[in-house]
């Protein structure tokens, strides 16, 4: 067994020790973290110059919808 094999085996054992519900939590936490980040963005970053005239011109809503769908998908499957 080479040095590279030993590193690989160590990493593999660590990954195997993580229970799947925790992994699901990791996936969901990543998506939730991203969602919180999107909502924390200033309006100037998510709307056209001069501000949004309609609610759907604020990109926060589109990004939120995309991420919420992801959160639902990774919660169910």
């Amino acid at each position: 067994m080479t040095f590279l094999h030993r590193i690989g085996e160590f990493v593999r054992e660590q990954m195997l020790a993580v229970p799947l519900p925790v992994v699901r939590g990791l996936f969901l936490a990543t998506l939730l973290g991203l969602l919180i980040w999107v909502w924390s963005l200033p309006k100037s970053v998510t709307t056209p110059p001069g501000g949004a005239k309609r609610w759907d011109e604020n990109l926060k809503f589109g990004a939120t919808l995309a991420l919420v769908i992801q959160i639902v998908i990774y919660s169910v499957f």
Partner: protein
Amino acid sequence: MILAETNQLAFADLAVIAAYLLGTIGLGLYIGRKMKTGTDFFLAGRQLPWWAIGMSLVATDIGGTDIIGVGGAAYKHGLAVANFEWIGCVPAMIVASFIFIPFLYRTGVFTIPEYLERRYNATVRSIVASCWLIFMACNLGIMLLASSKMMSPLLNIEVAYCIWATAGLVGFYTCVGGLAAVVYTDVIQCAVMIAGCLMVLVLGLSRVGGWDGLQERLAAAEAQQVEQQSPDSGIDGQSADANTTELSHPIEHTQLILPADTKTPFPWPAIYFGLALILSPAYWIGNQAIVQRSLGARSEFEAKASYVWGALLKNVIPLIIAIPGLIALAMFPGMKDGDQAFPRLVNELLPIGLRGLFVAAFLAALMSSIDSYLNSASTIVSNDLYKRFMNPAATDEKLLSIGRFTTGGLVAWAVMFAFLLTRMNEDSGIYAIFQTLMAFFQGPVLAVLLTGMLWRRATGAAAIVALICGIATSMSLYALNQESVYTYLGIAPLFQISEPFLYFSVWAFLVSLSLVIVCSLFTLPEKEEKSDLVVSWRSKS
């Protein structure tokens, strides 16, 4: 041949296909009439609307081989393949839309390598441009051949004629209309692709009794599969131990997250660390064929909006290309070749007349990927090689001619390479090598690009070292995992899953990232005008 079973096309089918092809050519010609400069050709005159770019992003990402391949992988391994479209796309697209795409748009560059020269130096630009060009040029030939092999039995035309026809058609409208033609034809192609695959999904679900019926049938199919693999059955002469290992993880066809020791190519560490954190950002932030269309947006806001719209559409894609693979498993369990899943479903579900729409959807998926890589490869040759090294004083009008000439040249090369591949043995590994090629350099390029955009202290010398060592790392890992190599060296393979390209990218990224950080700290800082080319974190509100 993959789609051979769907070749009973009626006149109505052929009429739908002909209407689609004529519409595509007509649109390309119409757009080409307005083409005046290189900026028009490469960036559509920066006049593209967000909705068209978003649909084009999705169409480019999904090729015809993906429709067949993803359906086949879902049949064999289950829903986990959908990770490539969900966690492997949506988060990276959202981050890119608010940080990296607007930043690149503001720099006014034509290509990612151009940004890398402004931030680092000409060597970094040349290395990255060469990697992309080699990959795109080879991939064009592969996509052309793969497309033609699928079209040949479908239309009852020889593969050689299909190669010429596809190259001629796609080459024509890309050459005439540039990026605008590519994006607007992609819009049609995206709509046709979604409509065609949605039809298969709806008819398939109604045939198996809805979602509940599908789950019941999948459970039965899994039980049958487990029974066949039980130690008592002694299939294929496998040892009891091997079967026990397999049985400890019965195939979970409706699970997205699979254990680290799954026998499928989708263990969760590869999906999370390799796909979601590395390959996906590398693709959506650093892939010239993808980023180029958002650089052609009408405004910075529309560039951002295009990525958000693309992310929303991406949520739908696995439903229409992966779920049909599961429906095929429920309807036809026990097929040996998973890639037959989608075609068999089409043959079984779609009445004559509607098959034409699916074939048009399939052609749309094939063409939308080829045209994008053709246009982007031409942009790199014209801007990163011709203008940068051969004729820095080239006018915008001159660049238009060079862009068209290069597109023609690339079409000729792709045809030649496709014919060369037809002479090679399909088992020679050439296909697998080129499919893995992108994983070789995407990790290192992402490390250099991210540090360049986010860290003022990153230097050009460090970027060169990181790129070379990162690419060498992924290539070495690939080589060490080849049976002939590890057998010769008398060692075990490094990775225990098939197709471990996601792991190559993780290690190559980590090596490159470490090197760019360490070497930057040991080299002199870049001049201010270079180190100022980083993302500003100051709030604009």
